[in-house]
């Protein structure tokens, strides 16, 4: 299968506009149709190394990003995200087409997928083991995730941990990492060579940009990882970097409160969460300085497993 970078820009544009493309992220195939230049550019830059083909065969999600019909196509243009032909969000201002695609794809995964237990968490891996960082928006998990992957960790996802209900392994997507507001310059300072897309201003979340995933993470995306560490991050201004052991029972509840489909899956979700916690070292982590945070988590990974409780 070819990757996005293999397609000449004009061909990518025409296919996106016409029948659409099938973009493969991990175990998911998404059929995307969009005639908007922001979407074409975003895909070309940020999904550069991802497999693409089709449209052919079965796709997990059928999505489109398009201008609405009527007046708002021309006057202060807006964009819509369509899933199976239906618009699922309120329209956004026209310049936010690419962030809307990203949010839309997150929505697909967190509302339409039931064969994984899905946590609201960033996941990176060191060697064979996963570092899971659960947290609501604003906890700084995406920023930390971006920082770690620019410093050699493997990216699985900045937004969701997909826990395999059968094997208990964690699957990744390796999709672009979303950065907000001050975390954009902070990351660029830490990793001047990393590719970050042009910022999109005045979105619901402020200024948004995306980090291109390392090619190595994209190529290994279909290899799941074992649980290793669960770290609950908290970005605290004027605080010292501090990594504190957390008991497994409070880690369990911390995970459950950040799960998207825990109650929808019932007993099997309980069992898998217990397994996940039992196999992981659990910590609370407050940080302010990215380089320091990366170093501290690197020490944690280097120290190996520590028996807890």
């Amino acid at each position: 299968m070819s990757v996005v970078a293999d397609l000449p820009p004009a061909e990518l544009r025409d296919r996106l506009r016409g029948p659409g493309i099938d973009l493969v992220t991990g175990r998911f195939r998404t059929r995307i149709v969009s005639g908007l230049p922001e979407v074409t550019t975003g895909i070309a830059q940020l999904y550069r190394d991802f497999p693409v083909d089709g449209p052919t065969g079965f796709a997990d999600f059928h999505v489109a990003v398009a201008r609405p019909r009527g007046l708002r196509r021309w006057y202060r243009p807006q964009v819509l995200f369509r899933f199976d032909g239906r618009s699922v969000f309120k329209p956004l201002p026209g310049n936010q087409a690419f962030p809307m695609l990203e949010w839309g794809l997150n929505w697909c995964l967190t509302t339409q997928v039931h064969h994984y237990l899905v946590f609201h968490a960033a996941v990176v891996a060191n060697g064979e083991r996963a570092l899971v960082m659960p947290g609501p928006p604003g906890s700084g998990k995406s920023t930390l995730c971006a920082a770690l992957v620019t410093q050699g960790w493997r990216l699985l996802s900045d937004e969701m941990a997909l826990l395999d209900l059968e094997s208990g392994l964690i699957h990744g997507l390796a999709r672009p990492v979303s950065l907000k507001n001050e975390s954009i310059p902070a990351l660029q300072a830490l990793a001047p060579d990393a590719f970050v897309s042009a910022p999109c201003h005045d979105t619901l979340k402020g200024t948004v940009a995306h980090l291109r995933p390392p090619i190595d993470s994209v190529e290994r995306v279909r290899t799941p990882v074992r649980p290793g560490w669960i770290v609950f991050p908290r970005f605290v201004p004027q605080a010292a970097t501090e990594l504190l052991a957390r008991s497994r029972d409070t880690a369990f509840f911390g995970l459950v409160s950040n799960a998207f489909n825990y109650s929808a899956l019932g007993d099997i979700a309980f069992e898998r969460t217990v397994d996940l916690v039992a196999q992981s070292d659990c910590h609370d982590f407050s940080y302010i300085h990215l380089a320091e945070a990366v170093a501290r988590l690197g020490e944690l990974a280097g120290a190996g497993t520590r028996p807890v409780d």
Partner: protein
Amino acid sequence: MLATLWDLLQAQGHAGAPPEPVRYQLWGAWLLARRRTTAILWELRCLAAELPVIEGGRPVLLKGVAYIVRDLPGARSRLCGDIDLLVPRAEIDRVERMLYWSGWSRGELDPYDEQYYRQWMHQVPPLQHRRRRSTLDLHHNILPETVRQPPEPARLIERAEPIPGDPVFATPTPAHMVIHSAAHLFADSEWDKAVRDFYDLDRLLRHFGEQHGDAFWDELLTEAQAMACGRQVYYALRCCSRWFATPVPVTVLARLRRFAPAAPIRAVLERLFGLATRAHAAGPSPRRTAASRALLFVRSHWIKMPPLMLMRHLFHKAFLSPREESP
């Protein structure tokens, strides 16, 4: 239907046949349905403790939840969202008031909708439990009061069968289950869910036909007439036997023919039912399906409301009801 499909594939030993991503989606849907069934059964236990004693017959569980407690084939993989409960009309207000004290209340409705529900519908506005977040549809009839010949719900409640080991609830007789399912489908406007509804009918007919044989078919005919639902049962049996090859005895179809409308109307409607039922995986429905659904939507309103009332309702909905905020 995805969970049902998974169930069928497993039952036939073909679970390994679909490609992996398809298999995962089907399995995921099945996990969801399985969990929903557990939740519904638990919810029933809570509700049983909260319901007052009802004069005039046990409260009757309808549709999906009835299929689950009767353990009918496929009931556990059928996604069942809320509980449908039928109580005698004379009791419905008291039941709603009593349930209020256990945490059941209805959402905000504008005064027109509220009045409309109270006066004309076959149910009170949907109730939701404050803490458990489950929803309950409390019915006093199986169709709105406004249809030209409203069914007689007392018959369904009187004959309803107690559930072994359950001191509170009852379920409709097999014939009444079929009649309710048919009445609902052909008078309703939700044609995007019609595949499932027809498949429900197919399963009920197969199961009860096998279990009770002629006694079931005789009772179905008698009750269809008595409940004034002959036309709907006629369409149901005809469509099922044509589309799903449901084994409906020829004599039963012949005896139902007197409920059929004039041949040209029947031909048009059956074509519309067929088109509207088609499901499309992705993208907007093709025009013919969308148009058929629109026509059936109009028809359902026509059946449910006398012309003058329909005019008044449409006028209100078009000009007076508060608009949904457009972004």
